[in-house]
């Protein structure tokens, strides 16, 4: 990155600046729209910066539904899912990489295939199942179907495969039980994978609209994205300013987490390469 001519450097900076603007522009536009009023929102070309700041949009969005409950539910659901995914992913990853049992590879092939089963298809049988056991509208219906992640298992297995068997054997010789091996020895080594996967999973499940919608029929465990969707109208000209304000409630926490965790994420990767 050092020896670059100044001309090239400014060109690169300009390009980066452009990219950054293109990337962040929609986010800024979201913020801007969330502070406008209806007249400003319907104007074309769209108002880029509101003249007066309408903070009441946030109050309106918050009050349009049980947003506090939605927020709590969203957090519980996302954290619950990711924790389970990591937990079960490590277990399954270990089983598929370090253990030997008959049909292991066949099972794994099935896991791979599960990677492409979309939630739209899983919804119907699972809805009926959860309905029959009365677990609809509970956290269980949101978390359990995602608790075992095929992607997570796949990636964690890959990571565990990289670890030489001697390390595992050494740990066993030291008297470590299976759980200890998985969580004290292998997991730390696979930390970059775990972090990378968690990042993806958190963003996905935090923003997930479809699953919490179809697995719930009342407000009990509904999440923020549903709350925002309820602000939309069909063709009647959505009240974008309120919708954006509502969307900010969904976006802000994740963005915040990212900003804080950025360094940790990078450190997770750096740490492990000191082999």
């Amino acid at each position: 990155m050092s020896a670059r001519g100044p001309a090239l450097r400014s060109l690169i900076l300009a390009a980066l600046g452009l990219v950054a603007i293109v990337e962040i522009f929609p986010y800024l536009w979201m913020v801007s729209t969330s502070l406008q009023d209806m007249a400003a929102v319907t104007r074309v070309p769209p108002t880029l910066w509101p003249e007066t700041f309408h903070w009441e949009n946030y109050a309106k969005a918050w009050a349009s539904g049980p947003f506090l409950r939605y927020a709590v539910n969203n957090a519980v659901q996302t954290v619950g899912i990711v924790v389970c995914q990591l937990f079960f992913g490590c277990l399954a990853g270990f089983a598929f990489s370090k253990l030997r049992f008959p049909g292991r590879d066949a099972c794994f092939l099935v896991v791979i295939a599960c990677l492409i089963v979309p939630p739209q298809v899983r919804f119907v049988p699972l809805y009926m199942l959860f309905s029959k056991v009365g677990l609809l509208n509970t956290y269980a219906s949101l978390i359990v179907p995602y608790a075992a992640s095929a992607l997570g298992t796949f990636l964690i297995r890959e990571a565990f495969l990289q670890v030489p068997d001697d390390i595992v054997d050494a740990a066993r010789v030291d008297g470590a039980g299976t759980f200890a091996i998985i969580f004290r020895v292998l997991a730390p080594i696979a930390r970059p994978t775990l972090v990378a996967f968690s990042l993806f999973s958190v963003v996905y499940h935090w923003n997930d609209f479809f699953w919490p919608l179809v697995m719930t029929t009342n407000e009990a465990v509904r999440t923020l994205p549903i709350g925002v969707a309820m602000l939309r109208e069909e063709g009647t000209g959505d009240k974008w300013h309120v919708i954006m304000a509502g969307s900010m409630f969904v976006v802000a926490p994740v963005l915040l987490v990212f900003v804080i965790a950025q360094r940790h994420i990078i450190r997770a990767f750096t740490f492990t390469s000191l082999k």
Partner: protein
Amino acid sequence: MLLFALVYLYPVAYSAWVSFYEWDLAMPARWVGVANYRALASPEFLEVVTNTVTYSVGVVLLSQTAGLALAVLLNDRTRMGALFRASIFSSYVVSWVAVSLLWIWLLDPQYGLVAHLFRLVGLPALNWLGDHRLALWSLVLVTVWKTVGYPMVIYLAGLQAIPGDLYEAAALDGAGGWQRFRHVTWPLLTPTTLFLLITLTITSFQGFDIVKIMTQGGPVTSTVIYVYYIYEQAFQYFKLGRASAAVVLFFTVIVALTFAQWLVFRRRVHYST
């Protein structure tokens, strides 16, 4: 393991079973044998497959390359770099609904910003979302725009894991910037690249929201990709049988592919021992 069986195999087996019926969720299911599968062997399904493959290849290649480039360029500890990185990542965490309207406006051929810019430089304004030849690529571009933050962050981490001394050694050997990249950075990034390749491909196959929100599969059927096709069949046409058949088909294809890959690797393993 048991959990797997429950949440994955049960719905999949159920789908397999349903695929042999014609069912609309309300009336009792009617056995139609392989009719659903035969119905799949239609030009429209083929179009779905081509669309999906095009979309995936486009998204994965572009977002991974762009992510790498951005990571390389932003691999520093300056405040500026952090700012750039945060802004690029911001689009990743925003939900689709929030930005869909913006993009529809931006791409409107009549008064959109993009059309405006094109006209400024004398290019004809393209109907990004309304032209059936362009729409899929428009979605690819919007997806890349939105998700490039993720490979960027992962590559960044991978880059920072490369010990600085290797670069110094290479520089001492007289290697210029590009050569350093080719011989030090790129090889050491291989695991990261592989990881991203797999993750991005898999997630691109699951693309759904963008289609649902921006084009609903249109114009005509040019942006119907795999998951959206399933959704359409199941939710809009209530042909659950056909939707399930599509799922089972893909399931089988993936299993077959993976099985073939595993066979190949087995032989290779034997070779090395």
